[in-house]
């Protein structure tokens, strides 16, 4: 590690995935600034409780965290000078709904179907509360509510779909709750609603961790086949990025943008009934059985996240499971992330179209031509995204899409267009980089009845066996709302609150 980050200045949600620190419950609030002066007073009050990225010991870890971010119109409402506003990038200025043609948010994902809160252009502030228990979350929420009442310059916006405290469906909730899912014994799990194990393999960047083992399979690949952390500037402004320069998405002055980042907030509804029906139907014609088919969709087995490239069939999976069960936690983590596709360039084990291979092709875009590029991940290292977030709702009826359940998906990156939007547009909804034409990601692609999805699961070349065709893929995930946010440093929060942001 060559970089020491100012962890007291960076907001905690950038460096930490709170879920993996035992913060199983979250609440997301969205506010409108009605008055610049009072709005800045509100920002000052919340800033006093904003959680930094400082390392926690067992005794110093809090039971609840708070973080804050702004949309472009939010920064306007807080009266940042034009000289600063003009430095923000086009994607952030436009906001997520106006980027729908790039993101593929069409049909049921079109912004006209999003939760009511996104129908008006007045979401200015995002506040997240992550707690170890719902009581911790509730207590901090009450505190935030008091600050809203006390300053009078901001309004908490209603309009989230979900279930109210009594379990009744509502489309006008004042906040978005999220929580990890629990297994049938009531134990915490890292599953999402389709049954996949989630949150493995987030990128690791310079300054984030002292543990070299955690970098394996999560940093960037060198020409020597080693894994090293990605440049900090891929995820935090004011630091050198993979192009050996400071991210040009940073507005002026430097104190506004240093240690900040951009966040994509997306509420993704999961069509659980359609998924289960589709998987059942397709497994009837798939030779390897239902769980292997589900694994082919994602690149990992559903039960424990075993990477398909090391566990291409039942026998190898059984061996892997045995080793995994006997291993200590660091070894388990390594087993989940330590792989490339070099021995599987053809995709016979992990399909080229599998979700995790699409969103992070590792060294495979060299197509086995060793040394073709400067480094094996030359086309990948500038497309990595930090994923944060939690599931929301419960899929009570496994045969139905109805209800409110999915993932609050949050992406952190230094350049929304170059990183998140590129992955979404080019690697989820398109596949020219994988030489697969317009084929889309099975799980996240914007398939439609008019244009149902299709993918090919490769087999061993020369084996004489035909590849497996998956056809008529329906839309499994629908966008229900979201926007692009700027997460300033704690210094910048104080300056925004003080009304002293000025590039001169």
């Amino acid at each position, binding site marked *: 590690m060559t970089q020491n980050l100012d962890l007291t200045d960076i907001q905690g949600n950038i460096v930490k995935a709170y879920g993996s620190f035992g913060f199983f419950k979250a609440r997301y609030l969205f506010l409108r600034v009605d008055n610049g002066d009072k709005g800045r007073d509100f920002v000052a009050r919340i800033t006093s409780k904003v959680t930094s990225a400082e390392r926690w010991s067992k005794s110093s870890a809090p039971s609840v965290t708070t973080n804050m971010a702004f949309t472009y119109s939010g920064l306007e409402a807080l009266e940042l000078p034009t000289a600063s506003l003009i430095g923000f990038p086009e994607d952030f200025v436009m906001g997520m709904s106006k980027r729908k*043609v*790039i993101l593929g948010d069409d049909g049921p994902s079109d912004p006209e179907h999003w939760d009511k809160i996104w129908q008006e252009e007045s979401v200015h502030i995002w506040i997240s509360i992550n707690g170890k228990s719902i009581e911790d979350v509730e207590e901090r929420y009450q505190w935030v509510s008091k600050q809203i009442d006390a300053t009078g310059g901001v309004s908490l916006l209603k309009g989230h779909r979900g279930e109210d405290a009594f379990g009744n469906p509502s489309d006008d909730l004042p906040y978005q709750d999220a929580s990890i899912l629990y297994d049938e014994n009531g134990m915490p799990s890292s599953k999402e609603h389709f049954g996949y194990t989630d949150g493995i393999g987030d990128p690791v960047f310079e300054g984030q961790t002292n543990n070299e083992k955690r970098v394996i399979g999560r940093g960037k690949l060198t020409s020597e086949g080693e894994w090293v952390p990605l440049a900090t500037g891929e995820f935090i402004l004011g630091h050198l990025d*993979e*192009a*050996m*320069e400071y991210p*040009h998405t940073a507005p002026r002055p430097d104190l506004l943008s240093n240690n900040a980042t951009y966040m994509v907030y997306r509420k993704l509804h999961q069509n659980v009934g359609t998924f289960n029906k589709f998987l059942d139907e397709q497994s009837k014609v798939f030779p390897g059985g239902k769980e292997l088919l589900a694994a082919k969709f994602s690149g990992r087995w559903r039960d424990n996240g075993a990477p398909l490239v090391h566990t291409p069939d039942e026998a190898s999976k059984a061996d892997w499971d045995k080793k995994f069960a006997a291993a200590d936690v660091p070894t388990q983590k390594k087993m989940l992330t330590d792989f490339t596709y070099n021995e599987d360039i*053809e995709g016979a084990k992990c399909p*080229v179209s599998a979700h995790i291979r699409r969103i992070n092709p590792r060294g495979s*875009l*060299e*197509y086995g*031509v060793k*040394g*073709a*590029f*400067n480094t094996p991940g*030359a*086309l990948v*290292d*500038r497309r990595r995204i930090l994923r944060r977030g939690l599931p929301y709702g419960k899929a009570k009826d496994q045969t139905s899409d109805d209800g409110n359940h999915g993932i609050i998906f949050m992406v952190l990156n230094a350049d929304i*267009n*170059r990183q998140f939007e*590129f992955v979404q*547009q*080019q690697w989820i*909804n*398109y*596949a*020219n*980089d994988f*030489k*697969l*034409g*317009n*084929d889309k990601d099975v799980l996240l692609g914007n398939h439609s009845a008019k*244009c149902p999805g*299709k993918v*090919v699961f*490769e*087999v061993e*070349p*020369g*084996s*004489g*066996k*035909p*590849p497996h*065709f998956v056809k008529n893929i329906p839309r499994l995930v629908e966008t229900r709302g979201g926007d692009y946010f700027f997460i300033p440093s704690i210094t910048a929060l104080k300056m925004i609150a003080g009304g002293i942001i000025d590039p001169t």
Partner: protein
Amino acid sequence: MSNIAGKAYAMNVITPIPWYKAWLNWLIFKAALLVPNVLNGLLTLSLIHYARWVIIPKGKFPHLDSSQPKEELKYSYMLFFSNFNGSWDQYVDSFTFAIPSGLDLFWKMNVRYPKSVPLTPFHNYIQHNQIDTSHYYNAYPMAASNDVKSAKNVKKALIDFNAASSNKDPDEFLKDYNNLLNNLQHDFGEMSHTPIVSLAALAVKMRHAGAHEKSHNHLR
């Protein structure tokens, strides 16, 4: 933008190069073609249809007619001409990250070439010297070069299969057919509309009208 037609983008970049260094550049190009593996990176970047570098010696710009005034140029020039799939950023960035030393070698003699890393000076250099395409016709707007290569594979394999296997008994035919699918397993990508690169008013309007496949694009 008139640089874009369907899934393709046309890029022209003309950069000055001191006339006394132009021949060295010419030698570098010759050598690159002779040494195997030098162009591996370029060839592996499958979004590129082709890339061509041409040295135009001092005073050798085309002079089509005696009525065309003669220009007085101080430099020789290097013309870089390429068609590719995807956006300008995606292309230029792929070049920078995949083959930075190759780029530096090809452009190193050129006036004020900044080197390919860091990125922004290189972006500025290309942007400053790029000549927009005023008319661009694409016969297959929904096809990327990978799609064309796959289509050619499928066509040839199918014709061969038909000739070799059409009269075989069912079991043999099935075996050959499965072999055919196995050999072509990376050539079955769907061919459809281009991902959106341009947010120009006309492009957005055409998209809403469902006219994605419009192929002819020119300045108006």
